[in-house]
């Protein structure tokens, strides 16, 4: 008797063990007449998207179902690719990154046929073009992004430093303030935090360093691999010198929110992040409220340039949706001037409609949006259009090459040379 029950325990334990490890996928069931929308989940964007979708639901009488997605953009893409390649219509309205249109276009509705021309013409032409694949407009822009430099106004003032104009300048200031603050008792203080985890965010950070030094955009507009040049090497080398000196080693596993966590809790002098971090750093319960300044990212030396990687998110409609009409209407609503204005005021998202950059209400709440208009219009694009469906591999090779240098596993020169070889092979000699 006892033997039997013990054995049973053993067997059920073994069985449960096999069962527990199987992958669970959340599958939201979309009923007829409801529209499901995949909202992002970084910072405050989930609440913003949810309230927007609910307002639309109230206005039109349609049911709306909000689905939350992973934080990491690579994982969101993977989720959408899996759903769409199965021709699933479970999520009707999808928020896509500015580098995804080439990857997902064949699964998305051509909005140029569904949306009036004057509505499309409100947005920045460059962003509309980025969302156009083979003459098909696959998404409407919701907000645009570019990397920004956040700094602690109070600390720079305390040590008599100006907001940095070059990365070299920043390196020096960061060291001075960090060492001073540590002596004063804050031993958790670091000079700079950014997105150093091996993921898409590091590609954005890395591209900014390289481009600010005048080192090009990894792959140029014609498809030629340009990354192996002395300026790119100098840029990556400088970033590599930060680790453990002015940047915590943990930055090698930081994404946006980890970096913001360190900066907003008062443990970093500088931070590279997207505009969304501004509104949160000014929230009533934020320890850094009123102590933060924002500027364009520094130049790579006196003859370098201010730059920022072009980011931004766009609303697309699933081709396999059972409720296309309502879904298109929701996408239109979420990208309308009213919604963009609300986003700009509440969570400091940058509009994609030029007219809003002169809007008084927005400028009163988030003045930097007006100041940095040129940063957003001159942002550097990742080479996603020229590399097409291979973009993910290009990006992965680039972020891994940069990550190897940051973690001290290889020298910038050899890492970049190896990257050039890999990308050239991947591109079949620039043909892609």
């Amino acid at each position, binding site marked *: 008797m006892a033997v039997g029950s013990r*054995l049973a325990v053993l067997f059920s334990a073994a069985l449960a063990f096999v069962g*527990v*490890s199987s992958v669970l996928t959340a599958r939201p069931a979309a009923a007829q007449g409801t529209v499901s929308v995949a909202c992002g989940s970084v910072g405050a964007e989930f609440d913003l998207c949810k309230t927007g979708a609910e307002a639309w639901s109230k206005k039109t009488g349609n049911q709306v179902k909000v689905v939350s997605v992973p934080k990491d953009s690579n994982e969101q893409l993977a989720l959408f*690719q*899996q759903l769409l390649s199965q021709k699933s219509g479970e999520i009707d309205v999808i928020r896509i990154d500015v580098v995804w249109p080439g990857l997902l276009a064949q699964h998305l509705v051509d909005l140029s046929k569904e949306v009036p021309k004057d509505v499309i013409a409100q947005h920045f032409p460059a962003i509309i073009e980025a969302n156009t694949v083979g003459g098909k407009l696959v998404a409407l822009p919701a907000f645009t992004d570019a990397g920004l430099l956040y700094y602690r106004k109070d600390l720079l003032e305390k040590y008599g430093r100006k907001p940095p104009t070059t990365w070299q300048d920043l390196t020096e200031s960061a060291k001075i303030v960090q060492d001073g603050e540590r002596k004063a008792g804050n031993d958790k203080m670091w000079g700079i935090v950014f997105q150093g985890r091996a993921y898409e965010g590091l590609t954005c950070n890395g591209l900014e360093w390289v481009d600010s030094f005048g080192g090009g955009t990894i792959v140029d507009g014609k498809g030629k691999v340009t990354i192996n040049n002395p300026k790119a090497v100098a840029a990556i080398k400088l970033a590599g010198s930060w680790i453990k000196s002015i940047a915590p*080693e943990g930055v090698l596993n930081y994404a946006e929110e980890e970096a913001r966590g360190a900066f907003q809790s008062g443990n970093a002098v500088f931070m590279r992040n997207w505009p969304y971090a501004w509104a949160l750093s000014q929230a009533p319960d934020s320890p850094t409220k009123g102590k933060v300044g924002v500027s364009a990212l520094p130049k790579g030396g006196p003859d370098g340039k201010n730059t920022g990687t072009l980011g931004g998110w766009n609303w697309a409609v699933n081709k396999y949706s059972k409720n296309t009409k309502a879904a298109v209407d929701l996408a239109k609503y979420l990208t309308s001037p009213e919604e963009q204005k609300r986003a700009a005021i509440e969570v400091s998202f940058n509009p994609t409609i030029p007219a809003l950059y002169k809007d008084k209400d927005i400028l009163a709440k988030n003045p930097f949006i007006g100041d940095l208009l040129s940063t957003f219009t001159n942002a550097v694009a990742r080479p996603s259009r020229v590399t097409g469906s291979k973009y993910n591999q290009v990006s992965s090779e680039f972020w891994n090459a940069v990550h190897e240098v940051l973690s001290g596993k290889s020298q910038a020169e050899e890492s970049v040379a190896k990257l050039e070889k890999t990308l050239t092979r991947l591109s079949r000699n620039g043909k892609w």
Partner: protein
Amino acid sequence: MAVAPSSLHPPEVIGHKAVAVAPSLLTRQRRRAALYFILPMMTVLTAVAGWPLARTIYFSFTNANLDNLGSQEWVGFANFVSLAQDPEWWRAVTNTVKFAAVSVSLETVLGLVVALTLNANLKGRGIVRTAVLIPWAVPTVVSAQMWNWMYNDLYGVVNAVFLKLGLIDHPYAWTASPSLALAAVIAVDVWKTTPFMTLLILAALQLLPQEIYEAAKLDGIPSPKVFYKVTLPLIRPALMVAIIFRSLDALRIFDLPYVLTGNSRQTASMAVYARQQLIDFQDVGYGSAASTFLFAVIAVFTIIYITAGRVKFDTGR
């Protein structure tokens, strides 16, 4: 599972061997009944395990792409050739083997220690036994994310506690530092899966006949000797089963390194590598080749272990 079969052999098998003529009506009936009982399970297994497996193996010989499954072409062994030439793949293989070897060894030793302790007649043993199981009951993704926060270099509790105890002199970046990341992943796995080992070993310990221990006591055998000469040989079959289960699971580890460190090449396992190729890069053909290789490794490992394990099992009796 390997514990039971030898004692459960149906008697007619022996009869069948002795008499070489056609099996009796009863035997045939029983065989047919057995077939009927097995059939539903075989059908389900073919549908949920056999079919996907066959499809993956087929894809590994094609240039299939996630975007247009169905229009792939046969490419022979090309995917396996590129796989063999990719240093990142071999790094993933090394990571996985290191992970499996270290984590399973630690879990076995710790599991044994905990099981022996729980087997003793302690007060409140029932509660402790249940409590020990908690780490194993928490879904891996949840516990991995929990540990991710605990490992954080700036506000993580691990650094705070170690600093207070004086074990380290400055905070470490546990999941980011190239030299610590794999060890951090292994530590979480040990924390999580030691209870599983404990449970299996404890079940075996409680089946041991008490008379042997009484005899050893009467003969005045010292307890370390009792452990090595009596306990260990007797629980070895169960221990082998536990180690096989754990090793198989460790070789296909995915969730822990993925949640803790993403696609980072420093900790990527074979399964993480395969997923990146399959999903992120949409290269179903190449990713399937990686998955097929992983399957082959696990299959070979299982065969070796079961064969070796059974031989020992028989002579041990």
